[in-house]
């Protein structure tokens, strides 16, 4: 049960976002600018960084949503979902670029503490072609997800385990982004299940 009274049936971050619209706007603006739009890192790559950090923080909702969004940006096939799963387990052994591996190394350090990022971590990223902006944005994405994960878990939000819910969230987010969304709108995967059990 959530630590505060949140709208029932809204999973993860959606409950808190509906609870407090004035904080929701800057949060959505931040994630929109970090994870969407033109960038030398693709949307899939940036969502992978968010997913990886969320998995390191053991935040089921965030790693599932952003993992699904990353997979959808890649095409949405089972192979794409499997790649995301493998990145979370051991990104060094996956076929992602060396640059992305170096940036995930930095993100993993930020997850523990900003002070853990070393000059060697940054040098490795530069050797693989990462720019100042890509390094900056990797640190900021990792830091931001240390915020989002704590926000979602710190309020003990409802985090369903049904993969279909996250597939739907990933499809919506990959298509629509994070701003101008109606987070009160029930997800079909949840509403459909409720109809089946006669809720």
């Amino acid at each position, binding site marked *: *049960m959530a*630590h*505060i*009274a949140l709208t029932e049936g809204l999973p993860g971050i959606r409950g*808190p976002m509906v*609870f*407090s619209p*004035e*904080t929701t*706007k*800057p*949060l959505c*603006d*931040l994630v*929109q*600018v*970090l994870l969407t739009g033109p960038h030398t890192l693709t949307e899939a790559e940036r969502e992978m960084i968010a997913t990886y950090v969320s998995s390191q*923080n*053991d935040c089921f909702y965030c790693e599932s949503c952003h993992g699904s969004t990353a997979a959808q940006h890649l095409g949405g096939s089972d192979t794409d979902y499997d790649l995301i799963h493998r990145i979370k387990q051991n990104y060094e052994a996956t076929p992602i670029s060396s640059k992305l591996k170096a940036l995930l190394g*930095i993100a993993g*350090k*930020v997850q523990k*503490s*900003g*002070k853990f*990022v070393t*000059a060697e971590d*940054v040098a490795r990223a530069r050797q693989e072609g990462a720019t*100042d*902006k890509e*390094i*900056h*944005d990797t*640190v*900021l994405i*990792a*830091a*931001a997800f*240390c*915020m*989002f*994960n*704590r*926000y*979602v*878990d*710190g*309020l*003990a939000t409802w985090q369903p385990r049904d993969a279909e819910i996250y597939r739907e969230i990933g499809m919506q987010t990959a298509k629509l982004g994070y701003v101008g969304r109606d987070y009160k709108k029930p997800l079909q995967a949840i509403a459909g299940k409720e109809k089946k059990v006669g809720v």
Partner: protein
Amino acid sequence: MGHIQVPEGAPGILGPMAVSRETTKALRELADVLLCGQNTLTPAEREMIATYVSSKNECCFCQLSHGAAAAERFGGNYDLVDQVKKNYAIAEISGKLKSLLAIAGKVHQGSKHVTPDDVACARQQGATDKEIYDTVLIAAAFCMFNRCVDGLDTWQPSNPDDYREMGKIMAREGYLRPDWEKKGEAA
């Protein structure tokens, strides 16, 4: 030396903010609504939560700049900020703020550490759902800001006196001043 190139002399978060304007706008709006917006928790109390979490994360720039903002909002009481950082349980602050700092401390550790008992304790002290929500989000946000400042190895002056002027400006004007793009301007 910082991990990326930023304007010389820009301390802490101001360096990265100067080179990444798109993300800066969203970060400033978030800080302003969290710490200065309409709320039953005073801006002083909210700056204190931010300062406490930043001290737990050992982020020099954030704890000293927000510590100065908190002190200025508490009428220039720098001793109070030091008391809270050392041991808030015996500081001269309300029981409600102590219970919210306990929640903030748990969020700092990792938010699965926040328990129903922590929340019940805050409610017993008169905290509302919104105040609990805002405490969790402020603590979470400062786990982000602290990581940005340290993760990019920014320049962080260590003398608390260097932050007094910054704290006065933050307390007086918040985080959305139109001239924030000026190099070296206070956070």
